[in-house]
């Protein structure tokens, strides 16, 4: 069952087309990443889904309902974490969560337990009675995660959840999200951080200049990366024609170059690297250093966002 369906979605700001005829489908239980460089249209798409802005054309549905007409009903089952997070600073963390819980109509006893459980989960229990204005950015982000879970949502929509956080806080937030998705909640995560997407998600849609350039499972992209081979750099003291010829003869070696006393080649896999090393030694070469570089998701991302 499709949780999110986007068809022909377009949003323009004057001359700028922020989202351009976007089509997207997120299935139930998917851990979905919306990946793209800054200004690609990720936040605009999410803002349309949350009904903060309105599309010029196209349709967006969540749980089979139109986001514009049935926004209020849809939002009962959504947990949202915006990129720019703002709380009621004069209220405490507990009071903020209590207010949001009331808007979902959660009864008092259930509400109290739920808030305390969530504060415990995001490690803010000892600061629950502090005003949010006294919180650090990382603490606010954790509180943001807590508020997104107050209604036991079926869909989590997170827009750049680790944006502006220091490495430690980012790590903590990522771990929190990983724990959440283990329970089977559908996640729609917008990010420009590839390693974050790789760690959390199982499906990725790459968007650039408002257009979808690729949607695939992360494992397929990883296989594609593997198919592109490994770049191996071998530092050899006495490179000569014999060594180069013997390396060329090894099956699975492509694009062999010699640069600053280094043999650089693209090889099929690690086994070929070992064969290349043997060939160099047999040809009388003296290896001092071997480096392998596996292409990562970043290269695919850069290639896709540059080409399109």
């Amino acid at each position, binding site marked *: 069952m499709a949780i999110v369906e986007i068809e022909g979605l377009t949003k323009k700001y004057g001359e700028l087309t922020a989202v351009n005829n976007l089509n997207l489908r997120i299935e139930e239980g998917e851990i979905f990443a919306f990946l793209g460089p800054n200004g690609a249209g990720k936040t605009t798409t999410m803002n349309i889904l949350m009904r903060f802005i309105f599309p010029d054309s196209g349709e967006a549905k969540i749980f089979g309902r139109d986001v514009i007409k049935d926004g*209020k009903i849809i939002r009962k089952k959504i947990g949202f974490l915006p990129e720019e*997070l*703002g709380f009621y600073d004069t209220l405490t963390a507990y009071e903020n969560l209590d207010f949001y819980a009331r*808007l979902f109509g959660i009864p008092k006893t259930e509400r109290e337990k739920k808030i305390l459980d969530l504060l415990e989960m995001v490690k803010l229990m000892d600061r629950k009675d502090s005003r949010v204005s006294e919180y650090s950015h990382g603490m606010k982000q954790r509180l943001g995660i807590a508020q997104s879970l107050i209604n036991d949502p079926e869909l989590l929509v997170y827009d750049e959840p680790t944006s502006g956080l220091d490495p430690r806080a980012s790590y903590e937030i990522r771990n929190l999200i990983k724990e959440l998705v283990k329970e089977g909640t559908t996640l729609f995560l917008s990010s420009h951080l590839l390693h974050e997407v790789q760690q959390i998600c199982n499906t990725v849609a790459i968007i650039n200049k408002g257009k979808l350039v690729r949607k695939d499972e992360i494992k397929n992209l990883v296989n594609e990366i593997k198919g592109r081979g490994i770049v191996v750099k071998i530092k050899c003291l006495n490179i000569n024609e014999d060594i180069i010829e013997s390396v060329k003869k090894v099956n699975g070696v492509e694009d062999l170059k010699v640069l600053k006393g280094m043999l650089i080649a693209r090889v099929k896999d690690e086994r070929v690297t070992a064969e290349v090393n043997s060939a160099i030694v047999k040809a009388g070469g003296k290896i001092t250093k071997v480096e392998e570089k596996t292409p990562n998701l970043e290269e695919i991302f850069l290639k896709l966002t540059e080409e399109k």
Partner: protein
Amino acid sequence: MNFSIYSAWEIAKKEFYEYLKTKRLIIIGSLYIAGFLISVGILSYYSSHSPEDFSSIMASAHSTVSIFYIILPITLSYDLIVRERSRKSIYLLLSKPVSREEVIFGKFLGVLMIILCIIIPIATLGHLIAILYCGFPDIESIARAYAYIGVVILGAECYISFSMLFSIITKTTATSLISSLIIGWFGLNMFYPITTIFNFLSGVSSKNPWYSKIAYAISPSNNMGAAQRILADKLMGIPTQNIYPISISQSLISLVIFLLATFIVASLMFRRKELN
């Protein structure tokens, strides 16, 4: 329309609670309370200590602090929406199952609750102080004193709604405050004097032609003058109808129309507002 009074009430309670912690409420509220109660105290002390003085004491005391009946609602509501936007809390609020109409109504209700909680008890305390000095007046005087408060609150609602409209249109809290004060307070009051000057210069024989009446009725502060007239009618023993361009009932209807019009416009504008 998918409107839940429960959600609006929750928003109103939150607004109310949040306002109790703000400095501007403490400062402006304290000035109003002190101004009103001190006025009542002084006027009562120097009165002839007769129950007949009750209406004049209340009319004078309310006149002393009448500026607060405009400033208080404006300063409490000029940033209702624009503040949510500037601190980005609007995104979390609207990601919950609330409609934008509920947000508008809830916020309006929150400010109104604050104003009611200040004006009614303080006015009642003022009445008690006056009664303490002058003795118990007739029921009609007390009823007129509370009718005065009723009109003031209706006028305050107009200013809440009007300022809320600016808090939707404008992008900064400063612009919203300045616009609300300049247009709401001074701007709307300018129409009637302009028509009066126009009438004088153009030699219009009728004292208050229809457009002068409309120019008068368009300003909530002019119409809030109806409150003063409710007390003045009693004091003077004659209706003040011929002194003002429109009657008390016309003033009350004008306030209701102004309130509804600004509230509906604010709701419609917020409904389609893009929150980037």
